């Protein structure tokens, strides 16, 4: 499962922009002794995690144990109070917020995001991405008129546009999804892992993925 290590080192110059901390091989994500602070309170100390291409890790733990904080920290949106995070592949982050402006259509949001990142953004690519999450039917409506689950599907369609080596950081990706979309998401994740990608997901709901996921349980620090 993790045999393709050197393959990914310093790869995908086309998506250099998405690469954080490009540098020393082996490719993957290394979280070393990270402490997380949320709202002035220490929620985790000395958290360590290593992932290489083709791996999936599920974050579990009670509410407030720092799952989302860890994902945001790896995405670079929050500072780690201590420790180091190294990641030498592109990162795609889908947090609680979908990253879709309510006033624009799903298609515009998706195309803007793809253009911003220098990814394929022609109609064919966008349609294909939308189809993966069965989101094409409502992609031309302003996002504010979509339901929670529909927005989630448009947001998740973003994943298929990214580079195959990417690390996906998913925060409750299947919240609000109906059964069919959950399966579509499972397929998306399985395909990504087969293609040499990595997935780190915080989720309470089970993901029906065929790959055996590792699980990282974040304990509540009382």
């Amino acid at each position: 499962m993790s045999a393709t290590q050197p393959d990914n080192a310093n790869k995908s110059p086309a998506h250099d922009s998405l690469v954080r901390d490009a540098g020393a091989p082996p490719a993957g994500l290394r979280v070393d002794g990270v402490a997380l602070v949320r709202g002035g309170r220490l929620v985790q100390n000395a958290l360590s995690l290593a992932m290489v291409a083709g791996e999936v890790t599920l974050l579990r733990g009670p509410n407030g144990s720092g799952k989302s904080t860890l994902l945001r920290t790896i995405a670079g949106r929050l500072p780690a109070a201590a420790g180091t995070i190294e990641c030498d592949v592109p990162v795609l982050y889908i947090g609680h917020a979908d990253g879709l402006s309510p006033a624009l259509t799903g298609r515009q949001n998706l195309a803007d995001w793809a253009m911003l990142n220098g990814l394929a953004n022609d109609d064919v690519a966008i349609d294909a991405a939308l189809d993966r999450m069965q989101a094409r039917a409502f992609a031309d409506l302003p996002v504010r008129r979509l339901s929670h689950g529909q927005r989630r599907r448009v947001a998740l369609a973003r994943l298929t546009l990214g580079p195959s080596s990417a690390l996906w950081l998913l925060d409750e990706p299947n919240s609000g999804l109906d059964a069919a979309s959950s399966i579509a998401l499972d397929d998306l994740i399985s395909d990504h892992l087969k293609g040499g990608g990595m997935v780190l997901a915080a989720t309470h709901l089970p993901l029906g993925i065929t790959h055996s996921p590792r699980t990282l349980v974040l304990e509540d620090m009382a």
Partner: protein
Amino acid sequence: MSPFEVQLRRDLRLGWAGRGDMAVMLGFFLIILTLVPLAVGPDAAFLQPIAVPMIWIAAMLSSLAGFTRIFSEDVRCGWVDQVALSPLPLPLYVIAKAATHWVIGAVPMLLATPLMALMLYMDTSHLPALLLALVLGTAALTLLGVIGAALTEGARGGGGLMAVLVLPLAMPALIFGALASAPADGGIVTPHLMLLGAVLAVLLAVAPFIAAAALSETESESGA
């Protein structure tokens, strides 16, 4: 299309979709200035000397009304997270936001200014100087507003806090702007206008970085 152009086009679309908010800014500007003759009386002798100062104060206050929303939607919906992970540097994102905000918010105000100047019996020979100074002044104010909006993003009562934060910093722009708008010798390019330009230049250099630093670590909706 470069990432900056993508963001610029996106902001223009968003600005157009939210043009109601901007109409409120323009309406605020018109109402403040309409209240002046009602309070002071319609006498030209009273109105003429205060026309330029009142136009400046109205422009400042109504600009302030639009600032709170500059980043709030993008932060709440998570777009800022996506920008932060993209090749577009956050300072450039801030510049795109400020530029579109100025075009959509300040330009209608500038277009309405000649009419307001007439209503207040302003000396029309000063109009070009006033408009030029207002162009620079509203741009400077927008950059201050961008700093204020980014710093108070997510703070409770952000709007009021921002007014207290931004208005004192806007004093130099107001002083030089008001002086540049009524030049004594009829020349348009006065030392005051140059000082106003200097204020704008300094803000142009620092505001995008300050705002980007404030936005670099923000929480999105229920992001915890």
